C-alpha cells in the first residue's frame, strides 16, 4: 500500500515545492491536470464496465488452459486470445508461464502471449478517446501481428540455442 502511494505522494510534494518557488506555473499545472482528469472520467467508467464483463466471464485458470494447447492456427489463436484477455501485473503471470514452459508449452506460444498483453480490451475506450478510432484499430491489429513476428523470432533464437 505504501509503495502504491509513494509515487503520487512524491508528485504532491513536488507540487508543494513548486507552489512556493513558481506559484503561477504550479497553478497552471494543477488546472491542466484537473482538465485531463475530467476528460478521463467517462472513458474510465466505460473501462470499468468492460473490465467487469471480462471478470464475469474469464478467469485466470481458463486463460492458463488456453496456453500450450493445440498446434497450428488453433494454438496461435488460443495463445493470442489468452494474452489479450489476461489482466493484472505481468509479475503475477511469470510463475504460471514458467510452469507451463516446464510442462512443454512452446517458446512461440509464450512469446505470443506476452506480446498480445499489449492489447487491452478494457482500455480501448480510453485509447479511442485520446487517439481516435482509426489509430486504435490499426495499432492494435499491428500489435497482434507484431506479437506473432516476435514470437517467430524468439522461437528461432531459442531453437538455435538448443541446437548448439
Amino acid at each position, binding site marked *: 500500500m505504501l509503495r502504491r502511494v509513494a509515487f*503520487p505522494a512524491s508528485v504532491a510534494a513536488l507540487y508543494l515545492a513548486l507552489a512556493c518557488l513558481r506559484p503561477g506555473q504550479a497553478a497552471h*499545472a*494543477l488546472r491542466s491536470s484537473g482538465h485531463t482528469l475530467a476528460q478521463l472520467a467517462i472513458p474510465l467508467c466505460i473501462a470499468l464496465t468492460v473490465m467487469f464483463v471480462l471478470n464475469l466471464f474469464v478467469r485466470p485458470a481458463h486463460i*492458463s488452459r488456453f496456453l500450450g494447447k493445440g498446434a497450428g492456427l488453433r494454438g496461435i489463436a488460443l495463445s493470442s486470445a489468452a494474452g489479450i484477455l489476461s489482466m493484472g501485473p505481468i509479475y503475477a503471470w511469470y*510463475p504460471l508461464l514458467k510452469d507451463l514452459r516446464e510442462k512443454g508449452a512452446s517458446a512461440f506460444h509464450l512469446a505470443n502471449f506476452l506480446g498480445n498483453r499489449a492489447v487491452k480490451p478494457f482500455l480501448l475506450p480510453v485509447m479511442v478517446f485520446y487517439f481516435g478510432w*482509426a489509430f486504435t484499430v490499426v495499432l492494435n491489429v499491428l500489435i497482434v501481428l507484431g506479437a506473432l513476428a516476435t514470437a517467430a523470432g524468439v522461437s528461432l533464437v531459442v531453437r538455435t540455442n538448443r541446437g548448439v
Partner: protein
Amino acid sequence: MKIAVPAVEADLDAEVAGTMSTCRYLLVVDAGTMTFEVVRAPSEWGRPGLGVQMVSRALSLGAMVFLTRHLSPRLAETLRANGFAVVTGAEGTVREAIGWYLRCAPAPEPAARARLSAALGRSLRQLVVMVPTLLGVVFLVGLLRSFISKDTLAAVFTGHAVGDAAWGAVFGSILAGHPVNSYVIGRALLEGGVSLVAAAAVLYTWVSVGLVQLPAEASALGTRFALARNGLAFALAIPVALITVLLAGWLS
C-alpha cells in the same frame, strides 16, 4: 467445489502444513467426493517463490478456495483480488480441516449473485490499484506541460519520423506501469507538438518491452528468451509506429 490445502504428505489424513513455502504437497480436494489431485513441490524445495508456483498449479486444477494454516499476506491479497477465497487457521489433518471449513464457511450465495459480486469486487480492486499511479502520472504530466517548453521537446523529437519513433520506443521501454499511463503520456506528447509516430512507439513498447521486468522474465523463461523477445519487440516498434500512422491517416 475444489479446495487447495498444503499438506506434509500426499494424503487426506496427513497434517496441514505450516506454510506454503515449506510444504511438500498441495492437495486439490473436491469437497463433494473427497477425491484429490496432488501438486508436488519441485526438487528445489524450500526456495523463495515456491509457494506462488504451487498455488498457480492449484489454480490451473480448478481450486477456488485456499485452506491453510498460514499464508503470506501478499499472496492472500493477490488471490482474493482474483476472486479466490482464502481461509487461514486450519488445524489437524487435511480431512479435518476441510470438514471444519465446510461446517464454518458462510452459506453459499446464489451462484449468479456470487459471480456478479466477485466480478464487481475484482474490477473495483483492479481500478483502485490503477488509480494512485494514474493520478501521479496525470499530475506529473501537468507539471511537465507547464515547465517543459515545446522547444525543449522539439530538441529531442525533431520531427524526423524514424528518429521520433526510436526516441518514443526508448521512453516506452524504460518507463513501466499500467498501460493507461502510456495513453496519458502519449496524448501529452501530441499536445506538446510531438509527432503521432513517437506516441505510437511509446504505446507499443510500454507493454511489449520491459527493461524493468527483464530480470524477472529472464529468471522465469530464460535469459535468451527474454533478451530475444524484448530486443525483437523493440526493433519492431519503429516500423509498427510508422505503419500505424500511415494507415490511420489513410483510413481517417
